[in-house]
């Protein structure tokens, strides 16, 4: 019987320091298949295992994760360098509902490290070219906390892709927007059937969802990817449920409509 709990070895091909506490790791595993919005279980042997969202798009034949230093596993990962090995299993989770984006206008709203899972879908959609327009609205606490800075320009150069960035607190040399990410919604002209994809800290999601609803987004056009305490990643250990939904197998991607009536869902 196949053992889904056993991870396999992957080599760190490169490490990029995105912000003072976020690094992007490119991994080189064999035969790792995934779709945008899925996650993997990352092990550092002797330390433990943690679910990490995949930030790259499989269309580019690479596997990348962007990880914020938060706990023991992420702390140990941050110590590693190119050439070191980690252990992974997956990919797990439902991923984004790709058919929902075909020919549509898509508004991405990301906060902090929350842009990591969105980037997987952004690059996937750009490569597949089957969309009408993409807006990327992104905010972080300070300019130093912005992840994927080099990519903003690359995205902006794509046809029908438009990036707006903001920070909560600017610095002397910051020329861009200052304020919450939800305020960026005012800068764009959104089609009535646009679909939104939101990821970030709970407080950001709370306000962005309010903003989106006031702009007329119905619950099924507000999509988010959720985080919960998770161990096994495959629906057994019982840690990650939000009411009747398991984030690991039913999610991590949910629409606001999916969560309607769920007693443990609060935004």
């Amino acid at each position, binding site marked *: 019987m196949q053992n889904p709990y056993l991870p396999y070895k992957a080599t760190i091909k490169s490490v990029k320091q995105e912000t003072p506490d976020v690094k992007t790791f490119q991994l080189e595993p064999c035969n790792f298949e995934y779709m945008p919005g899925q996650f993997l279980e990352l092990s550092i042997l002797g*330390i433990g295992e943690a679910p990490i969202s995949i930030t790259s798009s499989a269309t580019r034949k690479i596997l990348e994760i962007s990880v914020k230093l938060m706990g023991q596993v992420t702390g140990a990962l941050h110590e590693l360098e190119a050439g070191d090995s980690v252990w992974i299993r997956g990919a797990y989770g439902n991923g984004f509902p790709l058919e929902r984006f075909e020919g549509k206008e898509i508004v991405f709203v990301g906060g902090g490290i929350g842009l990591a899972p969105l980037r997987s879908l952004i690059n996937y959609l750009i490569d597949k070219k089957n969309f009408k327009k993409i807006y990327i609205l992104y905010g972080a606490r300070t300019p130093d906390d912005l992840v994927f800075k080099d990519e903003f320009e690359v995205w902006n150069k794509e046809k029908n892709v438009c990036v707006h960035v903001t920070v909560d607190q600017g610095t002397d040399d910051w020329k861009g927007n200052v304020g919450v990410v939800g305020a960026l919604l005012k800068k764009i002209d959104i089609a009535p059937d646009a679909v939104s994809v939101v990821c970030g800290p709970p407080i950001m999601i709370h306000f962005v969802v309010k903003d989106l609803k006031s702009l007329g987004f119905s619950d099924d056009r507000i999509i988010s990817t959720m985080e919960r305490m998770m161990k096994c990643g495959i629906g057994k250990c019982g840690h990650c449920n939000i009411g009747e939904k398991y984030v690991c197998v039913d999610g991590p991607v949910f629409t606001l409509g999916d969560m309607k009536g769920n007693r443990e869902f609060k935004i």
Partner: protein
Amino acid sequence: MQNKIIKKVIKKDKIKNWINELMKNYKVIAPVKEGDEDVFFRIIKSADDVCMDFQNTVLSPKEFFFPKSEKIFEFEGDEISDSGSKIGRKRILFGVRPCDVHGLTILDNVYKGEFNDPYYLQRRENTTIISLACSEPDENCFCKSLGTGPVLCDADLIITDLGDKYFIEAKTEDMNLVNFDIIKEAAPGDVELKDMKQKESEDKITRAIELNKNLDDLHLESESRKCLGCGCCTYICPTCTCFDVSDESMISKQKGKRFRCWDSCMFPSFALLAGGENTRKEKSDRFKQRFYHKFKYYPEKYGKVMCVGCGRCTRKCPVNTDVVKIINYNKLDCNY
């Protein structure tokens, strides 16, 4: 193979001989009395250790399928070895009460599915189950209202106490288990007596849990206040499936193991995120999770409640939290 219904009897004084026969080909797990009254399932070394006179074991036999702690793999340097899921000798779980057999079928749903849990499922496949129907149910038992006892279950064999002998029945023929001289064909009178004894046992169960309750109408918030959060109810529950996964290593981190162990949704750290946010911060959140999981989420997914009415959680709770009372009484009941 032609299916037949096995209907046999064995004299009580021959039961040890039967167990001895079974031990020749199987590892036998059976109820063993420890101290004055507590009975636990143990891997027996001698048929003399088996206790046939008990209400129910302190712990369900869950741990023989889903151990309290088990190794997933070992690692040394940069290599791991799958050391956890080896199939051992074929086993017999002897003398398990019908409610606990139903408990295993509830666990099956969780550990099977899109992903199979090889540790649990291999042990399950490797184990023959011989159930001992209840004759003296406890006052806290409410299996009858859930259809999980006190007699019928999905065991390979079911044995029923007839006084000076046991009745042995099975839906399908596995003659290897009963093909011994000491086990005789049942006489028509034995069948009648068995039916009578089983009916008597059913009649002794007076507690009943109400099904299809709207949990939002219950006293969960106020009931949670006295809860100590000790997790006892989840550890002794035959249907609780949650586990934690941890790594253990030498200081060098060059050698160690990954293991999983039972976890409890009643513990504050159960839903604690790495960033410090706790999605079930209040004790009442955790208390409600247990009830909603067992009586709403699981039934919505699998069509039956995640409880077999064994009464262990009620019996052992240090602050007398009573699952039947909580489910049966609504907020508006003034006599509560």
